Protein backbone atom coordinates (compact mmCIF):
# COMPACT_ATOMS: atom_id res chain seq x y z
CA UNK A 1 0.00 0.00 0.00
CA UNK A 2 1.59 3.24 -1.16
CA UNK A 3 1.77 5.90 1.56
CA UNK A 4 -0.23 9.09 1.13
CA UNK A 5 1.42 12.50 0.79
CA UNK A 6 0.54 14.72 3.78
CA UNK A 7 -1.76 16.95 1.72
CA UNK A 8 -3.56 13.89 0.28
CA UNK A 9 -4.44 12.79 3.77
CA UNK A 10 -6.62 15.84 4.39
CA UNK A 11 -7.77 16.64 0.87
CA UNK A 12 -11.57 16.80 0.52
CA UNK A 13 -12.91 16.06 -2.94
CA UNK A 14 -15.65 18.46 -4.10
CA UNK A 15 -17.53 15.35 -5.20
CA UNK A 16 -17.98 14.60 -1.50
CA UNK A 17 -19.77 17.93 -1.08
CA UNK A 18 -21.93 17.33 -4.11
CA UNK A 19 -23.01 13.70 -4.00
CA UNK A 20 -22.39 12.37 -0.49
CA UNK A 21 -25.20 13.07 2.01
CA UNK A 22 -22.50 13.59 4.66
CA UNK A 23 -21.12 16.42 2.54
CA UNK A 24 -24.28 18.37 3.23
CA UNK A 25 -23.50 18.50 6.96
CA UNK A 26 -21.43 21.39 8.26
CA UNK A 27 -17.81 20.33 8.91
CA UNK A 28 -17.77 21.58 12.50
CA UNK A 29 -20.88 19.64 13.42
CA UNK A 30 -18.81 16.45 13.38
CA UNK A 31 -15.23 17.69 13.62
CA UNK A 32 -15.63 20.64 15.93
CA UNK A 33 -13.19 23.53 15.48
CA UNK A 34 -14.12 27.09 14.62
CA UNK A 35 -14.74 27.83 10.94
CA UNK A 36 -15.03 31.53 11.80
CA UNK A 37 -11.55 31.59 13.30
CA UNK A 38 -9.33 34.40 12.08
CA UNK A 39 -6.51 32.09 11.03
CA UNK A 40 -5.63 28.42 10.59
CA UNK A 41 -4.65 27.92 14.23
CA UNK A 42 -7.90 29.38 15.55
CA UNK A 43 -9.98 27.51 12.99
CA UNK A 44 -8.41 24.19 14.02
CA UNK A 45 -8.63 24.75 17.77
CA UNK A 46 -10.62 21.84 19.23
CA UNK A 47 -10.78 19.94 15.95
CA UNK A 48 -11.62 16.25 16.35
CA UNK A 49 -9.73 14.23 13.81
CA UNK A 50 -11.95 11.14 14.05
CA UNK A 51 -15.38 12.03 15.43
CA UNK A 52 -16.36 8.36 15.48
CA UNK A 53 -13.74 7.31 18.04
CA UNK A 54 -14.04 6.27 20.80
CA UNK A 55 -17.80 6.78 20.99
CA UNK A 56 -19.54 6.98 17.61
CA UNK A 57 -23.01 7.34 19.10
CA UNK A 58 -22.43 11.09 19.52
CA UNK A 59 -21.49 11.62 15.85
CA UNK A 60 -22.53 8.84 13.47
CA UNK A 61 -25.32 7.74 15.79
CA UNK A 62 -27.04 11.10 15.93
CA UNK A 63 -28.56 11.08 12.48
CA UNK A 64 -32.21 10.24 12.23
CA UNK A 65 -32.98 7.08 10.31
CA UNK A 66 -35.72 4.50 10.26
CA UNK A 67 -36.04 2.73 13.58
CA UNK A 68 -34.28 -0.61 13.78
CA UNK A 69 -31.84 0.24 11.02
CA UNK A 70 -29.01 2.57 10.18
CA UNK A 71 -26.41 4.41 12.17
CA UNK A 72 -28.01 4.58 15.65
CA UNK A 73 -28.66 0.86 15.47
CA UNK A 74 -25.01 0.24 14.60
CA UNK A 75 -23.36 2.73 16.88
CA UNK A 76 -25.18 1.63 20.01
CA UNK A 77 -23.41 -1.72 19.63
CA UNK A 78 -19.95 -0.22 19.42
CA UNK A 79 -19.05 -1.46 22.90
CA UNK A 80 -19.01 -5.02 21.54
CA UNK A 81 -17.25 -4.16 18.28
CA UNK A 82 -13.77 -5.63 18.60
CA UNK A 83 -12.27 -3.18 16.09
CA UNK A 84 -13.05 -0.37 18.51
CA UNK A 85 -12.49 -2.04 21.86
CA UNK A 86 -9.56 -4.34 20.96
CA UNK A 87 -10.79 -6.36 23.94
CA UNK A 88 -9.07 -9.58 22.79
CA UNK A 89 -5.61 -8.03 23.30
CA UNK A 90 -6.38 -7.24 26.89
CA UNK A 91 -8.24 -10.51 27.50
CA UNK A 92 -5.35 -12.59 26.22
CA UNK A 93 -2.59 -10.63 27.92
CA UNK A 94 -4.48 -10.60 31.22
CA UNK A 95 -4.78 -14.38 31.16
CA UNK A 96 -0.97 -14.50 31.33
CA UNK A 97 -0.33 -11.37 33.38
CA UNK A 98 1.10 -11.05 36.85
CA UNK A 99 -1.92 -10.41 39.15
CA UNK A 100 -0.07 -7.73 41.18
CA UNK A 101 -2.08 -4.47 40.67
CA UNK A 102 1.11 -2.39 40.37
CA UNK A 103 2.38 -4.67 37.60
CA UNK A 104 -1.03 -4.64 35.91
CA UNK A 105 -0.92 -0.84 35.86
CA UNK A 106 2.45 -0.93 34.08
CA UNK A 107 1.12 -3.51 31.63
CA UNK A 108 -1.93 -1.33 30.93
CA UNK A 109 0.33 1.61 30.26
CA UNK A 110 2.53 -0.41 27.90
CA UNK A 111 -0.49 -1.82 26.11
CA UNK A 112 -1.89 1.68 25.74
CA UNK A 113 1.34 2.76 24.06
CA UNK A 114 1.65 -0.27 21.77
CA UNK A 115 -1.16 -2.81 21.37
CA UNK A 116 -4.16 -0.53 21.81
CA UNK A 117 -3.10 1.94 19.15
CA UNK A 118 -4.17 -0.52 16.45
CA UNK A 119 -7.90 0.07 16.89
CA UNK A 120 -10.25 1.14 14.15
CA UNK A 121 -13.55 3.04 14.19
CA UNK A 122 -16.48 3.85 11.91
CA UNK A 123 -14.45 6.59 10.26
CA UNK A 124 -11.21 4.64 10.06
CA UNK A 125 -12.97 1.96 8.01
CA UNK A 126 -15.48 3.94 5.97
CA UNK A 127 -13.76 7.31 5.46
CA UNK A 128 -10.03 7.15 6.08
CA UNK A 129 -7.18 4.73 6.47
CA UNK A 130 -6.71 3.57 10.07
CA UNK A 131 -4.53 5.85 12.20
CA UNK A 132 -2.26 2.92 13.03
CA UNK A 133 -1.09 2.85 9.40
CA UNK A 134 -0.72 6.61 9.08
CA UNK A 135 -4.34 7.59 8.51
CA UNK A 136 -5.47 9.82 5.65
CA UNK A 137 -8.78 10.19 3.83
CA UNK A 138 -9.24 7.32 1.37
CA UNK A 139 -11.31 8.99 -1.36
CA UNK A 140 -11.48 12.68 -0.61
CA UNK A 141 -13.74 12.08 2.43
CA UNK A 142 -16.34 10.12 0.40
CA UNK A 143 -17.99 7.57 2.67
CA UNK A 144 -17.51 4.03 1.42
CA UNK A 145 -20.19 1.58 2.51
CA UNK A 146 -17.75 -1.30 2.04
CA UNK A 147 -14.22 -0.45 3.19
CA UNK A 148 -11.57 -0.95 0.50
CA UNK A 149 -9.51 -4.11 1.10
CA UNK A 150 -5.97 -2.81 0.56
CA UNK A 151 -6.22 0.52 2.34
CA UNK A 152 -8.42 -0.58 5.20
CA UNK A 153 -8.69 -4.33 5.81
CA UNK A 154 -5.24 -5.63 4.94
CA UNK A 155 -3.46 -2.43 5.92
CA UNK A 156 -3.88 -3.81 9.46
CA UNK A 157 -4.53 -7.50 8.82
CA UNK A 158 -1.72 -7.70 6.31
CA UNK A 159 1.19 -9.66 7.69
CA UNK A 160 -0.75 -12.87 8.08
CA UNK A 161 -4.29 -12.91 6.68
CA UNK A 162 -3.69 -10.38 3.89
CA UNK A 163 -0.58 -12.09 2.57
CA UNK A 164 -2.16 -15.51 2.82
CA UNK A 165 -5.35 -14.45 1.08
CA UNK A 166 -3.59 -12.65 -1.77
CA UNK A 167 -0.91 -15.33 -2.25
CA UNK A 168 1.97 -13.04 -1.27
CA UNK A 169 3.92 -15.68 0.64
CA UNK A 170 6.58 -17.10 -1.66
CA UNK A 171 5.60 -20.45 -3.10
CA UNK A 172 2.21 -20.52 -1.38
CA UNK A 173 -0.90 -19.96 -3.52
CA UNK A 174 -3.53 -17.38 -2.61
CA UNK A 175 -6.94 -18.28 -1.28
CA UNK A 176 -9.21 -19.82 -3.92
CA UNK A 177 -11.95 -17.37 -2.91
CA UNK A 178 -9.64 -14.60 -4.09
CA UNK A 179 -7.77 -16.21 -6.98
CA UNK A 180 -10.73 -17.97 -8.62
CA UNK A 181 -13.71 -15.96 -7.44
CA UNK A 182 -12.24 -12.49 -6.79
CA UNK A 183 -14.06 -12.25 -3.47
CA UNK A 184 -13.18 -9.37 -1.16
CA UNK A 185 -13.13 -9.53 2.66
CA UNK A 186 -16.69 -8.20 2.97
CA UNK A 187 -18.09 -11.11 0.95
CA UNK A 188 -17.72 -13.26 4.07
CA UNK A 189 -17.10 -10.74 6.86
CA UNK A 190 -20.28 -8.72 6.77
CA UNK A 191 -21.12 -5.49 8.57
CA UNK A 192 -23.04 -7.50 11.17
CA UNK A 193 -19.83 -9.20 12.20
CA UNK A 194 -17.72 -6.04 12.08
CA UNK A 195 -20.11 -3.79 13.99
CA UNK A 196 -20.46 -5.98 17.07
CA UNK A 197 -23.39 -8.00 18.31
CA UNK A 198 -24.61 -5.59 20.95
CA UNK A 199 -24.89 -8.49 23.39
CA UNK A 200 -24.61 -7.71 27.08
CA UNK A 201 -21.33 -9.62 27.30
CA UNK A 202 -18.64 -8.65 24.82
CA UNK A 203 -17.02 -11.62 23.06
CA UNK A 204 -13.66 -12.84 24.37
CA UNK A 205 -12.18 -12.68 20.88
CA UNK A 206 -13.12 -12.83 17.21
CA UNK A 207 -13.94 -16.53 17.31
CA UNK A 208 -16.75 -15.79 19.74
CA UNK A 209 -18.39 -13.06 17.68
CA UNK A 210 -22.01 -14.10 17.16
CA UNK A 211 -22.26 -13.10 13.52
CA UNK A 212 -18.82 -14.23 12.48
CA UNK A 213 -18.19 -15.71 9.03
CA UNK A 214 -18.50 -19.48 8.73
CA UNK A 215 -17.74 -21.74 5.77
CA UNK A 216 -21.23 -23.24 6.17
CA UNK A 217 -22.77 -19.84 5.42
CA UNK A 218 -22.10 -20.59 1.76
CA UNK A 219 -21.23 -24.28 1.54
CA UNK A 220 -23.98 -26.78 2.29
CA UNK A 221 -22.50 -29.50 4.46
CA UNK A 222 -23.34 -33.17 3.87
CA UNK A 223 -26.72 -33.94 5.31
CA UNK A 224 -28.01 -30.42 4.85
CA UNK A 225 -29.72 -29.37 1.65
CA UNK A 226 -28.82 -25.70 1.80
CA UNK A 227 -26.17 -23.39 3.23
CA UNK A 228 -26.88 -21.62 6.51
CA UNK A 229 -27.39 -18.29 4.85
CA UNK A 230 -28.84 -17.29 1.52
CA UNK A 231 -25.47 -17.37 -0.16
CA UNK A 232 -24.18 -19.41 -3.03
CA UNK A 233 -21.24 -21.74 -2.81
CA UNK A 234 -20.29 -25.19 -3.95
CA UNK A 235 -22.10 -27.97 -2.11
CA UNK A 236 -19.60 -30.24 -0.43
CA UNK A 237 -20.16 -33.54 -2.19
CA UNK A 238 -16.81 -35.25 -1.71
CA UNK A 239 -17.11 -38.29 0.60
CA UNK A 240 -14.37 -36.93 2.83
CA UNK A 241 -16.76 -34.30 4.15
CA UNK A 242 -19.16 -36.90 5.51
CA UNK A 243 -16.25 -38.71 7.14
CA UNK A 244 -14.41 -35.74 8.65
CA UNK A 245 -17.30 -33.42 9.44
CA UNK A 246 -17.28 -32.36 13.10
CA UNK A 247 -13.92 -34.08 13.57
CA UNK A 248 -11.56 -31.59 11.94
CA UNK A 249 -12.04 -27.94 11.04
CA UNK A 250 -12.28 -27.09 7.33
CA UNK A 251 -8.78 -25.59 7.36
CA UNK A 252 -7.20 -28.85 8.50
CA UNK A 253 -7.85 -30.28 5.04
CA UNK A 254 -8.06 -27.12 2.94
CA UNK A 255 -5.45 -24.64 4.20
CA UNK A 256 -1.80 -24.65 3.19
CA UNK A 257 1.32 -23.31 4.92
CA UNK A 258 0.77 -20.07 6.83
CA UNK A 259 2.78 -17.61 8.84
CA UNK A 260 3.69 -18.09 12.49
CA UNK A 261 5.13 -15.26 14.55
CA UNK A 262 7.53 -15.42 17.48
CA UNK A 263 8.97 -13.44 20.33
CA UNK A 264 7.48 -9.95 20.31
CA UNK A 265 9.14 -7.31 22.51
CA UNK A 266 8.01 -3.73 22.90
CA UNK A 267 9.85 -0.68 24.15
CA UNK A 268 10.84 2.90 23.41
CA UNK A 269 13.92 4.05 21.52
CA UNK A 270 16.36 6.77 22.66
CA UNK A 271 14.08 9.52 21.41
CA UNK A 272 11.10 8.06 23.27
CA UNK A 273 9.43 6.62 20.19
CA UNK A 274 7.62 3.33 20.82
CA UNK A 275 8.91 0.36 18.88
CA UNK A 276 8.43 -3.38 18.67
CA UNK A 277 10.61 -6.21 17.46
CA UNK A 278 9.80 -9.79 16.61
CA UNK A 279 11.89 -12.80 15.72
CA UNK A 280 11.69 -13.87 12.06
CA UNK A 281 8.35 -15.43 11.21
CA UNK A 282 8.18 -19.02 9.95
CA UNK A 283 5.91 -20.61 7.38
CA UNK A 284 4.45 -23.82 8.74
CA UNK A 285 1.31 -25.91 8.88
CA UNK A 286 0.36 -27.48 12.18
CA UNK A 287 -2.69 -29.40 13.32
CA UNK A 288 -3.36 -29.27 17.05
CA UNK A 289 -6.15 -30.27 19.39
CA UNK A 290 -9.06 -27.89 19.38
CA UNK A 291 -9.00 -26.07 22.70
CA UNK A 292 -12.14 -24.13 21.82
CA UNK A 293 -14.50 -27.06 21.60
CA UNK A 294 -18.14 -26.10 21.86
CA UNK A 295 -21.50 -27.16 20.50
CA UNK A 296 -20.92 -24.91 17.53
CA UNK A 297 -17.30 -25.98 17.12
CA UNK A 298 -17.20 -29.67 17.98
CA UNK A 299 -14.10 -30.58 15.97
CA UNK A 300 -11.31 -32.39 17.76
CA UNK A 301 -8.55 -31.09 15.49
CA UNK A 302 -7.89 -27.58 14.23
CA UNK A 303 -5.10 -25.69 12.52
CA UNK A 304 -3.05 -23.78 15.09
CA UNK A 305 -0.89 -20.71 14.65
CA UNK A 306 1.96 -19.54 16.84
CA UNK A 307 1.26 -16.14 18.36
CA UNK A 308 4.18 -13.79 19.05
CA UNK A 309 3.72 -13.49 22.82
CA UNK A 310 6.85 -14.15 24.85
CA UNK A 311 7.65 -13.99 28.59
CA UNK A 312 9.78 -10.86 28.06
CA UNK A 313 7.18 -8.98 25.99
CA UNK A 314 6.99 -6.04 28.44
CA UNK A 315 10.50 -6.31 29.93
CA UNK A 316 11.29 -2.74 28.84
CA UNK A 317 8.50 -1.48 31.08
CA UNK A 318 8.49 -4.04 33.85
CA UNK A 319 10.13 -7.39 34.51
CA UNK A 320 8.01 -10.45 35.31
CA UNK A 321 4.93 -8.94 33.72
CA UNK A 322 3.78 -12.24 32.25
CA UNK A 323 4.29 -14.69 35.08
CA UNK A 324 1.36 -16.77 33.84
CA UNK A 325 2.60 -17.62 30.36
CA UNK A 326 1.71 -21.26 31.02
CA UNK A 327 -1.95 -20.35 31.46
CA UNK A 328 -2.70 -19.80 27.78
CA UNK A 329 -1.36 -21.61 24.71
CA UNK A 330 1.05 -19.97 22.31
CA UNK A 331 -0.20 -22.21 19.51
CA UNK A 332 -3.76 -21.00 19.14
CA UNK A 333 -6.84 -21.94 17.16
CA UNK A 334 -6.48 -20.39 13.71
CA UNK A 335 -8.33 -20.10 10.44
CA UNK A 336 -5.63 -19.52 7.80
CA UNK A 337 -6.97 -17.61 4.81
CA UNK A 338 -5.34 -19.58 2.00
CA UNK A 339 -8.03 -22.17 1.26
CA UNK A 340 -7.41 -24.60 -1.60
CA UNK A 341 -9.55 -27.44 -2.89
CA UNK A 342 -6.55 -29.76 -3.14
CA UNK A 343 -3.78 -29.54 -0.60
CA UNK A 344 -0.77 -31.74 0.21
CA UNK A 345 -2.53 -33.14 3.28
CA UNK A 346 -5.82 -34.05 1.55
CA UNK A 347 -4.26 -35.82 -1.43
CA UNK A 348 -4.73 -39.29 0.06
CA UNK A 349 -5.74 -40.65 3.46
CA UNK A 350 -2.11 -41.41 4.31
CA UNK A 351 -1.01 -37.88 3.41
CA UNK A 352 -2.48 -36.90 6.75
CA UNK A 353 -3.09 -40.05 8.78
CA UNK A 354 0.26 -41.14 10.14
CA UNK A 355 2.06 -38.06 8.78
CA UNK A 356 3.40 -36.91 12.15
CA UNK A 357 5.08 -33.80 10.71
CA UNK A 358 1.67 -32.16 10.39
CA UNK A 359 0.75 -32.54 14.03
CA UNK A 360 1.78 -30.24 16.84
CA UNK A 361 3.89 -31.93 19.48
CA UNK A 362 6.12 -30.78 22.32
CA UNK A 363 9.01 -30.70 19.82
CA UNK A 364 7.38 -27.64 18.26
CA UNK A 365 7.53 -25.67 21.50
CA UNK A 366 10.35 -24.04 23.40
CA UNK A 367 10.88 -25.09 27.00
CA UNK A 368 8.78 -22.30 28.53
CA UNK A 369 5.91 -23.05 26.13
CA UNK A 370 5.49 -26.75 26.79
CA UNK A 371 3.16 -26.40 29.76
CA UNK A 372 1.15 -23.67 28.00
CA UNK A 373 0.45 -25.89 25.00
CA UNK A 374 -0.14 -29.17 26.79
CA UNK A 375 -3.81 -29.21 25.75
CA UNK A 376 -2.92 -28.44 22.14
CA UNK A 377 -0.29 -31.11 21.54
CA UNK A 378 -1.57 -34.08 19.57
CA UNK A 379 -0.84 -37.48 21.13
CA UNK A 380 0.75 -39.22 18.16
CA UNK A 381 -0.55 -42.62 17.17
CA UNK A 382 1.70 -45.41 15.88
CA UNK A 383 2.43 -45.31 12.15
CA UNK A 384 -0.21 -47.00 9.94
CA UNK A 385 1.93 -50.14 9.21
CA UNK A 386 2.30 -50.69 12.97
CA UNK A 387 -1.37 -50.08 13.64
CA UNK A 388 -2.19 -52.59 10.91
CA UNK A 389 0.40 -55.14 11.98
CA UNK A 390 -2.37 -57.63 12.74
CA UNK A 391 -2.80 -58.01 8.98
CA UNK A 392 -0.77 -60.70 7.21
CA UNK A 393 0.87 -58.21 4.87
CA UNK A 394 0.27 -54.75 6.33
CA UNK A 395 2.44 -52.79 3.88
CA UNK A 396 0.85 -54.47 0.88
CA UNK A 397 -2.65 -53.88 2.14
CA UNK A 398 -1.84 -50.23 2.80
CA UNK A 399 -0.40 -49.81 -0.68
CA UNK A 400 -3.07 -51.64 -2.63
CA UNK A 401 -6.31 -51.49 -0.70
CA UNK A 402 -8.18 -48.25 -0.43
CA UNK A 403 -8.62 -47.28 3.23
CA UNK A 404 -12.39 -46.99 2.81
CA UNK A 405 -12.63 -50.66 1.90
CA UNK A 406 -12.20 -51.57 5.55
CA UNK A 407 -12.90 -48.20 7.17
CA UNK A 408 -16.22 -47.95 5.42
CA UNK A 409 -18.27 -45.22 7.12
CA UNK A 410 -21.43 -47.13 6.17
CA UNK A 411 -20.34 -49.96 8.48
CA UNK A 412 -20.55 -49.67 12.27
CA UNK A 413 -16.84 -50.49 12.75
CA UNK A 414 -13.80 -51.14 10.54
CA UNK A 415 -13.57 -54.61 8.99
CA UNK A 416 -11.07 -56.85 10.77
CA UNK A 417 -12.29 -60.26 9.64
CA UNK A 418 -9.98 -61.56 6.87
CA UNK A 419 -12.66 -63.93 5.59
CA UNK A 420 -14.98 -61.06 4.87
CA UNK A 421 -12.66 -60.33 1.96
CA UNK A 422 -10.71 -63.51 1.31
CA UNK A 423 -13.43 -66.16 0.91
CA UNK A 424 -16.15 -67.34 -1.41
CA UNK A 425 -19.04 -65.02 -1.99
CA UNK A 426 -17.42 -62.18 -0.05
CA UNK A 427 -17.28 -58.50 -0.60
CA UNK A 428 -14.33 -59.00 -2.91
CA UNK A 429 -16.26 -61.20 -5.31
CA UNK A 430 -19.54 -59.39 -5.17
CA UNK A 431 -20.60 -55.85 -4.95
CA UNK A 432 -20.38 -55.16 -1.25
CA UNK A 433 -23.56 -54.91 0.73
CA UNK A 434 -22.00 -52.09 2.65
CA UNK A 435 -20.81 -50.30 -0.45
CA UNK A 436 -20.96 -46.60 0.22
CA UNK A 437 -23.16 -44.39 -1.93
CA UNK A 438 -20.15 -42.39 -2.96
CA UNK A 439 -18.32 -45.28 -4.63
CA UNK A 440 -15.79 -44.03 -7.11
CA UNK A 441 -17.01 -46.60 -9.68
CA UNK A 442 -19.30 -45.38 -12.37
CA UNK A 443 -20.63 -46.46 -15.71
CA UNK A 444 -17.40 -45.61 -17.41
CA UNK A 445 -14.70 -47.69 -19.05
CA UNK A 446 -11.95 -46.13 -17.01
CA UNK A 447 -11.86 -44.64 -13.57
CA UNK A 448 -9.02 -42.19 -13.63
CA UNK A 449 -8.88 -41.51 -9.93
CA UNK A 450 -8.58 -45.21 -9.07
CA UNK A 451 -6.06 -45.91 -11.80
CA UNK A 452 -3.94 -42.94 -10.75
CA UNK A 453 -3.86 -44.16 -7.18
CA UNK A 454 -3.43 -47.83 -8.16
CA UNK A 455 -5.87 -48.76 -5.46
CA UNK A 456 -8.45 -51.41 -5.04
CA UNK A 457 -11.84 -50.28 -3.83
CA UNK A 458 -14.68 -52.53 -2.81
CA UNK A 459 -17.42 -52.32 -5.36
CA UNK A 460 -15.09 -51.22 -8.09
CA UNK A 461 -13.65 -54.64 -8.84
CA UNK A 462 -15.68 -54.61 -12.01
CA UNK A 463 -16.63 -51.81 -14.24
CA UNK A 464 -20.22 -52.44 -15.38
CA UNK A 465 -19.57 -51.15 -18.88
CA UNK A 466 -16.67 -53.58 -19.30
CA UNK A 467 -18.84 -56.41 -18.00
CA UNK A 468 -21.46 -55.61 -20.58
CA UNK A 469 -18.86 -55.45 -23.32
CA UNK A 470 -17.44 -58.85 -22.30
CA UNK A 471 -20.87 -60.50 -22.23
CA UNK A 472 -21.68 -58.96 -25.62
CA UNK A 473 -18.44 -60.34 -27.09
CA UNK A 474 -19.20 -63.85 -25.78
CA UNK A 475 -22.74 -63.74 -27.15
CA UNK A 476 -21.44 -62.38 -30.44
CA UNK A 477 -18.95 -65.28 -30.64
CA UNK A 478 -21.76 -67.82 -30.11
CA UNK A 479 -23.86 -66.07 -32.74
CA UNK A 480 -20.90 -66.28 -35.16
CA UNK A 481 -20.46 -70.00 -34.34
CA UNK A 482 -24.15 -70.60 -34.99
CA UNK A 483 -24.09 -68.61 -38.20
CA UNK A 484 -20.98 -70.46 -39.34
CA UNK A 485 -22.59 -73.84 -38.58
CA UNK A 486 -25.80 -72.85 -40.29
CA UNK A 487 -23.99 -71.71 -43.45
CA UNK A 488 -21.95 -74.94 -43.56
CA UNK A 489 -25.14 -76.98 -43.16
CA UNK A 490 -26.89 -75.08 -46.00
CA UNK A 491 -23.82 -75.47 -48.24
CA UNK A 492 -23.66 -79.24 -47.59
CA UNK A 493 -27.36 -79.65 -48.44
CA UNK A 494 -26.90 -77.84 -51.79
CA UNK A 495 -24.08 -80.18 -52.79
Amino acid at each position, binding site marked *: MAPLEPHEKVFVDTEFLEIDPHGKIACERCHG*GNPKGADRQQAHRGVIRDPSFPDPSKSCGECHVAEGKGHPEITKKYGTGLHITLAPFKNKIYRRANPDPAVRAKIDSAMGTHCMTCHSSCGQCHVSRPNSVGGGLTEGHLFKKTPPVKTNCTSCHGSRVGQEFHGENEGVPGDVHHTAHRMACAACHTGDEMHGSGAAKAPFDRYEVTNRARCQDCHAMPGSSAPRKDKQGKTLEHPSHAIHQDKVTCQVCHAVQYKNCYSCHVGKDKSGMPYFETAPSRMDFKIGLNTRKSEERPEQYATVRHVPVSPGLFDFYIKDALTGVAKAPTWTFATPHNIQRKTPQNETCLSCHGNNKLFLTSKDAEGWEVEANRDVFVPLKPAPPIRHSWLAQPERHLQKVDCLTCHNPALPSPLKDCLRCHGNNTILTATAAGKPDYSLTNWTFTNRELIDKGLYVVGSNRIPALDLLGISLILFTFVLFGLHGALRFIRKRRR
Partner: protein
Amino acid sequence: MVRRLSKSLVWFIPLLVCFLPHPAVAAKAEESSCIACHTSPRKLIEVIRELQASKPPVEKPAESTGEG
Protein backbone atom coordinates in the same frame (compact mmCIF):
# COMPACT_ATOMS: atom_id res chain seq x y z
CA MET B 1 -58.21 44.04 2.24
CA VAL B 2 -57.74 41.40 4.93
CA ARG B 3 -58.85 38.73 2.49
CA ARG B 4 -56.33 39.92 -0.10
CA LEU B 5 -53.59 39.92 2.51
CA SER B 6 -54.37 36.42 3.70
CA LYS B 7 -54.51 35.23 0.09
CA SER B 8 -51.10 36.66 -0.62
CA LEU B 9 -49.76 35.09 2.59
CA VAL B 10 -50.96 31.71 1.39
CA TRP B 11 -48.57 32.11 -1.58
CA PHE B 12 -45.83 33.92 0.27
CA ILE B 13 -45.27 31.45 3.13
CA PRO B 14 -44.66 28.33 0.98
CA LEU B 15 -42.37 30.37 -1.27
CA LEU B 16 -40.48 31.62 1.76
CA VAL B 17 -40.11 28.06 3.07
CA CYS B 18 -38.84 26.88 -0.31
CA PHE B 19 -36.28 29.60 -0.82
CA LEU B 20 -35.03 30.02 2.73
CA PRO B 21 -31.72 28.22 2.96
CA HIS B 22 -31.83 24.86 4.76
CA PRO B 23 -29.94 24.99 8.11
CA ALA B 24 -27.34 22.50 6.91
CA VAL B 25 -26.81 24.37 3.63
CA ALA B 26 -26.62 27.62 5.52
CA ALA B 27 -24.00 26.15 7.80
CA LYS B 28 -22.03 24.92 4.81
CA ALA B 29 -22.04 28.38 3.30
CA GLU B 30 -20.62 29.75 6.55
CA GLU B 31 -17.88 27.15 6.82
CA SER B 32 -16.42 28.10 3.50
CA SER B 33 -13.04 28.56 5.19
CA CYS B 34 -12.82 24.79 5.85
CA ILE B 35 -13.93 23.91 2.35
CA ALA B 36 -11.90 26.58 0.64
CA CYS B 37 -8.70 25.16 2.06
CA HIS B 38 -9.38 21.42 2.19
CA THR B 39 -10.63 21.21 -1.40
CA SER B 40 -7.56 22.95 -2.81
CA PRO B 41 -4.45 20.78 -3.13
CA ARG B 42 -2.34 23.85 -3.81
CA LYS B 43 -3.36 25.54 -0.55
CA LEU B 44 -2.92 22.33 1.40
CA ILE B 45 0.58 21.79 0.00
CA GLU B 46 1.54 25.35 0.93
CA VAL B 47 0.21 24.95 4.47
CA ILE B 48 1.95 21.62 4.92
CA ARG B 49 5.26 23.07 3.69
CA GLU B 50 4.87 25.85 6.23
CA LEU B 51 4.16 23.35 8.99
CA GLN B 52 7.05 21.09 8.01
CA ALA B 53 9.42 24.05 8.00
CA SER B 54 8.39 25.04 11.50
CA LYS B 55 8.39 21.56 13.06
CA PRO B 56 11.13 18.95 13.22
CA PRO B 57 10.42 15.96 10.95
CA VAL B 58 8.64 13.05 12.64
CA GLU B 59 10.77 9.95 12.38
CA LYS B 60 9.83 6.33 12.74
CA PRO B 61 11.41 4.51 15.66
CA ALA B 62 14.75 3.21 14.46
CA GLU B 63 14.58 -0.05 16.36
CA SER B 64 11.31 -1.55 15.07
CA THR B 65 11.92 -4.85 13.34
CA GLY B 66 9.66 -7.68 12.34
CA GLU B 67 6.03 -7.93 11.39
CA GLY B 68 3.13 -6.50 13.34
